[in-house]
């Protein structure tokens, strides 16, 4: 399955919309540098939801990763990209 980074980011934005509390000002302003916990205010439970939803959306399985290991949206995009290869 070949999905480019832009596609992954767009799909991830949709997941982020449902993973958050709906308090984001605008999902369009989210980019790879956006920090998940400080900028988007995601808690560990939000992160857990994000991982579960990402697994279902992309058909991948996350390895033994901790919730704090993904600092930015870019980290998640990169990880998904690696798993899809």
């Amino acid at each position, binding site marked *: 399955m070949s999905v480019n980074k832009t596609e992954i980011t767009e799909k991830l934005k949709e997941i982020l919309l449902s993973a958050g509390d709906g308090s984001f000002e605008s999902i369009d302003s989210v980019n790879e540098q956006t920090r998940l916990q400080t900028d988007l205010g995601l808690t560990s439970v939000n992160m857990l939801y994000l991982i*579960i939803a990402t697994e279902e959306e992309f058909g991948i399985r996350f390895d033994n990763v901790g919730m704090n290991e993904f600092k930015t949206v870019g980290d998640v995009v990169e990880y998904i990209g690696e798993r899809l290869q």
Partner: protein
Amino acid sequence: MSGSKKAKLFTFKYFFYDFMRVTGALPGVIWLRPKIRYASKAAKKRIRGGALVISNHTSFVDPAFTMFVVWYRRQFFVCHQAFLKTKAGPFFRAAGCLIPIDAENFNINSFRVITESMKDGKVVTLFPEGHVNGEGGDMTEFKSGMVLLSMQSKRPVVPIFMKPREHWYSRLKAVIGEPVDVAAMCADGPAFKKIKEATELLRQREEQLEEIARNL
């Protein structure tokens, strides 16, 4: 109650745990004299198969007390990794009744271990406040992780409320609530908003049980 797979009644893996439960049962019943009430007729139905039991948390011995509330099932407790470093930690670990998690950096594998346990027909018990609320007063905010666990395992959440004991010799008084099918609540797209709503509902259920417990 849902949860298609039944846990085995006896297995050598939990011999030490079962031994502990059986030998501790009589002295525990004499000491605690459990008084258990049910919120409704539906709550009286015994838990069959996997389930997630949630309870308020006012003392460090609450896990032992829940064993007297849901006495007929072997329970597995979600605990902080730090608990394993306490004096009692290795003892309970040897019994095989703990599922340790890293609360600071929660791990996806821990999540899978808990959901798989419930799918395998085990009863997992956790305290959604996430800490001992020994100060009395209202229950603190519930964490939403329990909803995700129930949703992913498709097993019900059974709320129980244990009335805080005033003295070491006080009776154990508890109320068991109706099981909540969280998976059904979040069936049409499990957006985080729904998860928050389910968390709030479970907290309300706990408060209702607290109200019943006041009159015990």
